[in-house]
């Protein structure tokens, strides 16, 4: 039987979230609410030095004065910040020495996610830091990495053991007062990953973090700090899931990347938080601030596959401060049912001969709204800046929306800036062309959607590309072959 777009639409509407299980793990959860005492308690629980506690408190004080931003093209019920528990940790006092000590229930969680720690460790050679409900529970491959001088650990450990590095760089790219959610995160972040690559070292394996919100009524506020010293290279992966819950959960992370001279950072995200059920109930609010700074001759590349979350609101950005630096942004955002996404990037050209590339693909189905919002700014001193942006949207059905809000600000006459955008559906002529050549409709749709997102998928590291494919299948099953 021929597979039609109608059927695909029906399938999309009824597609359920595959990762919606709850793991029964004893958790140590703070009671709901936020105050200076809660901030102090988090800091104390993490055994942090005084300067960190003060740093958090100052962030909390400025957060209190700030208003929640409203300019985005998404509609949602604002979270009640006093109804969230700001700390939840799987109950176990000591840090695990080896995988055998990890709660078997937890390990099962990872197996269900398809990221069995063991498997990853042996086969893929990926070092993984796993964060459940904001606390880091397992870090693999640490020894191999430390031989090269690479530091890869949880951020709370880094605060204790490498205070100089943390003190120097934390908040240097995203100041505490940058925005409402970054201030909140700075005050209450409970854990996250820290990574430092020393001068001239090429990280031999992909580094990876897995985030999961498990406990009900908690928010996840993780903090990631990646520093690539002069001439180094690192590829960093990040994945996220959450169980199905009726209420909306808040995820407000901050990711800071620092690429010093001649360094290169590749940061890939596969985001698959619980998107809510098909009536739009529940789901995760994903309000994330991600930003990287490029020094001379360095390069930062963001790749993201956004398939989950009820509301996604994030703009991974690059500040191209150094001469000859390069910023890249590759994104696929898939929205279905009542999901909303307002995502894009900012490329700030400050140095001479800086280059940036933006490739954004949006696929909307069901009753979802998908927006691209991006800024390309060329400052007066950024001689010979070059930018290429492309945003394509694919619409499935007439109940969804696709929006484009590009901001282009150029203050230098040697700049070359190109922007193009298109919106379309899967063309009948495209399917006809395939049919004509003996490819049935199902395969044709698969081919077209695959081709539509290929430019971005190609930029994911091998180990992740497979998983990203799998996630696209979940959101658009039947269309990806």
């Amino acid at each position: 039987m021929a597979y039609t777009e109608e059927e695909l639409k029906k399938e999309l509407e009824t597609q359920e979230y595959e990762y919606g299980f709850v793991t029964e793990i004893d958790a140590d959860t703070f009671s709901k609410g936020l105050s200076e005492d809660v901030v102090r308690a988090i800091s104390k629980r993490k055994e942090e030095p005084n300067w960190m506690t003060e740093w958090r408190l100052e962030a909390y004080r400025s957060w209190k004065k700030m208003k929640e931003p409203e300019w985005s093209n998404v509609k949602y019920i604002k979270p009640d910040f006093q109804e969230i528990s700001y700390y939840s940790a799987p109950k176990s006092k000591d840090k695990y020495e080896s995988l055998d000590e990890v709660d078997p229930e937890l390990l099962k969680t990872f197996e269900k996610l398809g990221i069995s720690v063991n498997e990853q460790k042996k086969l893929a050679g990926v070092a993984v830091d796993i964060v459940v409900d904001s606390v880091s529970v397992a870090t693999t491959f640490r020894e191999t990495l430390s031989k090269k001088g690479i530091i890869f650990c949880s951020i709370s450990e880094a605060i204790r053991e490498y205070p100089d590095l943390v003190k120097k760089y934390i908040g240097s790219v995203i100041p505490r007062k940058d925005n409402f959610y970054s201030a909140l995160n700075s005050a209450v972040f409970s854990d996250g990953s820290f990574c430092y690559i020393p001068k001239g070292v090429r990280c031999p394996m992909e580094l990876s973090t897995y985030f999961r919100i498990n406990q009900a009524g908690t928010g996840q506020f993780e903090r990631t700090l990646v520093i690539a010293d002069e001439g180094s290279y690192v590829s960093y992966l990040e994945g996220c899931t959450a169980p199905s819950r009726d209420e909306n959960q808040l995820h407000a992370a901050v990711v800071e990347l620092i690429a010093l001279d001649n360094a290169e950072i590749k940061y890939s995200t596969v985001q698959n938080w619980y998107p809510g059920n098909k009536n739009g109930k529940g789901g995760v609010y994903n309000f994330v601030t991600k930003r990287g700074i490029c020094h001379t001759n360095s390069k930062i590349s963001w790749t993201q596959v956004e398939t989950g979350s009820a509301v996604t609101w994030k703009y991974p950005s690059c500040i191209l401060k150094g001469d000859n630096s390069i910023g890249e942004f590759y994104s696929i955002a898939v929205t279905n049912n009542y999901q909303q996404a307002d995502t894009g990037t900012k490329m700030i050209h400050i140095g001479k001969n800086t280059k940036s590339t933006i490739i954004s693909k949006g696929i909307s189905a069901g009753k979802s709204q998908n927006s691209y919002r991006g800024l390309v700014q060329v400052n007066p001193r950024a001689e010979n800046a070059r930018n290429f942006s492309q945003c394509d949207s694919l619409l499935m059905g007439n109940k969804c929306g696709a929006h484009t809000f590009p901001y282009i600000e150029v203050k230098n006459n040697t700049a070359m800036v190109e922007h193009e955008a298109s919106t379309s559906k899967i063309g009948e002529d495209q399917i006809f062309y395939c049919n004509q050549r003996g490819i049935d409709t199902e395969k044709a749709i698969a081919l077209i959607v695959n081709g539509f997102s290929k430019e971005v998928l190609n930029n994911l590291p091998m180990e992740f590309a497979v998983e990203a494919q799998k996630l696209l299948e979940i959101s658009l099953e039947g269309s990806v072959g």
Partner: protein
Amino acid sequence: MQLTEKLISSFLAFELDIDIHSDIHNIRTNAIKKFEELGFPNKKLENWKYTSLNRIIKEDYTVFSKKKNVIDFKKVKDYFIDNIETHKLIFVDGFFDPFLSQTSHDGLDICIMSAALSKPKYAKIIEKYFNKSANLEDSLTCLNTAFSKEGAYVHIPKNTVLEKPIEIIHFATGNEAALMLQPRNLVVVEQGAEVEIIESHQSLTVNPIFTNSVTEIFAEKNANIDYYKIQNDVVTSSLVDNTYISQKRNSDVKVHTFSFGGKLTRNNLNFFQKDSSINSTMNGVTIIDYDQLVDHHTLVHHANPNCESHQDYKGIYSGKSTGVFNGKIIVDKIAQKTNAFQQNNNILLDNKSTINSKPQLEIFADDVKCSHGCTIGQLDQDALFYLRARGIPKKEAKALLTYAFANNVLESVKIPELKIRVKNIIAKKLGVSLGFDL
């Protein structure tokens, strides 16, 4: 006194002059209330993010010119298009000038707003169309509505094809220091009728002039309108042009905007497609220098199926000039088979010039073809070298390439005399004489 307060208090004086018992007056009173509430737009508003009116509204403007000024045709001859017969509607300091104008009532109405607003024979049309497509939430439009009294009134009856174009010129003598003008125009083109209109604003003084103009255009079934806006004013005058176009089935409206002059020029161009199979076209060429600013804000609302819209804006910026382009296309759920195209190309010639471009799409229908493109760059060095290698001086070569860049838009001008005029303005602007016709 701040301009805002001055305007609000002048409204009381304005009321002494007009019939305050008419229905129109209710519209005016509501509008001034709205303006009082909103005030002048500031940079905090998303729509005014890149354009500040502060340097314009700080001047001490005379809100209405007290006396009618007479100008000599010989002095202003150059501002008229040569060698062409036109219907003329000429206004001086906001007053109609019957000596320079050539109105017509021969089966159609090409006359003035003050007559249309007061005489009973126009009441039906005014009731049906006046302030019906203008944005009631826009502060500057409301300000204009409150003081609406004079401007062009054009009503073309069914199946009438107008042979001569209509030329509308607003002169400002500014004899009484700084002057603020608020012309209000209404153009109604009935079923199957065709018309060409050329509009310009010209200041004859070095005193600051601030024009806040509102034009409402209604194109009924199968109507055809070509509207040319020639903005080549002196660098001491500023213009905010709010144009609202409402279209019915099979109508075709084209607006061509040529922005070469003025201190600050803001064009708010809004198209509302009220039926299916409609064509809307927006073309624009901007060539500015010094600290001039030109801001094009376009909105096309596709609310019905099978419609098309085309936008093509070219900009060339020298000196410390700033260009802003904000194009918004909205495609409603039911507007299937929409074909919307938007293009914005810019050239920056100096390192002090700035361009802010924001082409937006908001799409709720799936079977549509919508695309936009935006580029910012320089003149092609290879092409420049090619021309110079053939003995063409640098200045002329640059001018040639500039023409080529803007040619797409210039080609869309249907009146040959107007094309020559635009060409001459560009040549003058670039300081060259070109030995060819477009």
